[in-house]
């Protein structure tokens, strides 16, 4: 480390930095070549985003002519709308179940299989839901959770319990969706934790072995957990964002029901915008959601940047 820092970079400068300064013609070519991609980005991403932002301050409605500027009325409506409040509560419940479970389980699985001979098998099994299309998998879950024909209830009956109407009982529907959400996120988190585990130097474990923390929780708390901290921050933020964005399973399995018990934020947005055509209101929801997710990402970037700087100060 120290050696690498001691190499005088300035001595290399004439060869590298100098030759990279583009001439005027090169700069022009660069601009011209990037025009098509820029146009596409503006047309498909940036433009619509700006449009949505403006629409959120209007009473725009799909199919109706005439748009009026109504200020922050859509946003105040969001705060007072009992339906939206209900969807916020549902989402919060979903997130509260999914985030800790998906992170804890992912970490547990990663730690357990990291040194296993069957690591590849487990990794594949857990990662499958991440790679596959969630809509297709949701359909499979529908079959498993079917009240009379589903595998889940067959199993429950074998164990002597009475069958549960997982998706059509308002008391269980959101938890059934949360279970599917966990199942889908665990694999992703596990892969990230496995990557984090592989970067922990073996000597740290050996030092811990000699220092008296040779296995189990002691070793985990002295070495593994602190060394995984950066990965954990990333995993937490990603899991929170993905849990808040739950949509496909709701759309396929419950359509927000029964009795609005699984109506989550993104599903409400979808209903408002594409079923009731209240584009202005839907835009306000999506802008709020965007702000929230951006905020989370910024927090994550700040935390990991501080860590990076902390490490760069002559880190090991």
């Amino acid at each position, binding site marked *: 480390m120290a050696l690498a820092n001691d190499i005088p970079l300035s001595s290399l400068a004439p060869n590298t930095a100098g030759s990279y300064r583009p001439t005027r013609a090169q700069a022009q070519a660069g601009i011209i070549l990037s025009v098509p991609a820029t146009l596409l980005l503006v047309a498909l991403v940036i433009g619509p985003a700006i449009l949505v932002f403006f629409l959120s301050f209007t009473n725009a409605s799909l199919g109706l002519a005439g748009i009026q500027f109504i200020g922050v009325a859509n946003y105040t409506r969001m705060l007072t709308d009992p339906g939206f409040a209900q969807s916020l509560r549902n989402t919060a419940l979903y997130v509260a179940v999914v985030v800790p479970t998906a992170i804890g389980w992912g970490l547990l699985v990663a730690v357990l299989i990291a040194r296993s001979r069957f690591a590849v098998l487990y990794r594949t099994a857990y990662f499958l839901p991440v790679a596959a299309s969630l809509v297709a998998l949701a359909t499979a879950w529908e079959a498993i959770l079917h009240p009379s024909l589903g595998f889940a209830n067959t199993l429950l009956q074998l164990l002597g319990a009475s069958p549960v109407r997982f998706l059509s009982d308002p008391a269980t529907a959101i938890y059934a969706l949360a279970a599917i959400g966990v199942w889908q996120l665990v694999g992703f988190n596990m892969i990230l934790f496995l990557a984090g585990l592989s970067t922990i130097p073996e000597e740290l474990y050996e030092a811990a072995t000699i220092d008296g923390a040779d296995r189990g*929780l002691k070793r985990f708390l*002295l070495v593994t957990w602190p*060394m995984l901290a950066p990965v954990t921050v990333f995993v937490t933020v990603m899991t929170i964002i993905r849990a808040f964005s739950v949509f496909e399973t709701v759309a396929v399995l419950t359509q927000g029901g029964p009795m609005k018990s699984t109506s989550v934020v993104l599903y409400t947005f979808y209903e408002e915008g594409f079923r009731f055509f209240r584009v202005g209101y839907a835009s306000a929801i999506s802008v709020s959601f965007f702000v929230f997710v951006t905020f989370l990402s910024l927090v994550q970037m700040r935390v990991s940047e501080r860590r990076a700087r*902390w490490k760069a100060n*002559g880190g090991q």
Partner: protein
Amino acid sequence: MAALDLHIDDIGKRFGAIDVLRGICLRVAAGEFVTLLGPSGCGKSTLLRIIAGLERADQGHVRAGGRGLDAVAPKDRDLAFVFQSYALYPHLSVHDNIAAPLVMRELSSLERLPVIGALLPGAIQRKRSIQERVRQTSGLLKLDALLERRPSALSGGQRQRVALGRAMVRKPKIFLMDEPLANLDAALRIHTRGEIARLHKEMETTTIFVTHDQAEAAALSDRVAVIFGGELRQVAAPADLYREPVDLDVARFLAQPFLNELAVAAPIGGGLMIGGSRIIIRDALGSGLAGTLAFRPEHATLAEKDHPGALPVRVTRIEHAGIDAHVFVDAEAGAQFVARISAERARSLRDGDNLGLTIDAEKAWFFPSNGSRQRGDHSGAA
């Protein structure tokens, strides 16, 4: 402080098809400083890790103070290990790094918790005792001003001292150090070497030190164990090793940067033929096998061309090295030698000068082709 003796008994280790260690026997007296010296990949680190319990030997036993260690967990072996990479806990302060072995051993998992731990009876007292010992150690290593820092905010030398502190703090009976100076720059390496010698003098802990640097080994050790290709070739005090290497590998490794070597026919009455000249070497007396003549540059001198008993040579290159100079010469029949003479004397020499090379007949070695020298009487386990 009480130190323990260490008996290493017929240790063998294989990694796959490769014999990493073969029949290693070594006895280290209590309080002794022994260095395992050898080139990279010779198995010296593996041996150290077997002593620590980080690696399991395929055969043989390790005993400390009469107690068999083979079935004992590393943490219960009463020894400390200093890693080449220091292996400090990056998220802990210097204080907590040094305290870690004490905290892990002396506090229960409840007592280690941040808030609840402070409320448990007895924990406060034990924590105070830990703090006291950390302060003692940090004072000894001049780390007092750095206790609150993280390892990432320390220089290489400071990290090295923290690693030493973490090893010393629980007063182990045996110290194991795996190339602890390898990651330091030259000046710091020599300084830290002195520190380690001072600490060993003060604490008198049995120490096994692994290095590939012969100067480091010579400077620190009571005895040096030279390992080649998984075999222990020689164990001797540095001065004896310098004078009486058992075989050519050891001689080469300990005669850096240069060793003069020349393949010769079987000696007759101690006389070796170099080109047309016959030189008598005491070491070759009584040997009837072909082999290699070897001598250090400092055991040869340059004289006048017609000096009696001198080999006629021609100077090809002179390398000044402060107080001395290495003079490279060509002899008859394509042989090349190096002589180390005073820089003063080297100033009068020029490339192409024709001179006579005399070899110190008492100090030169003859290694018969069948392996060890006959006079390797300082070899083997002490």
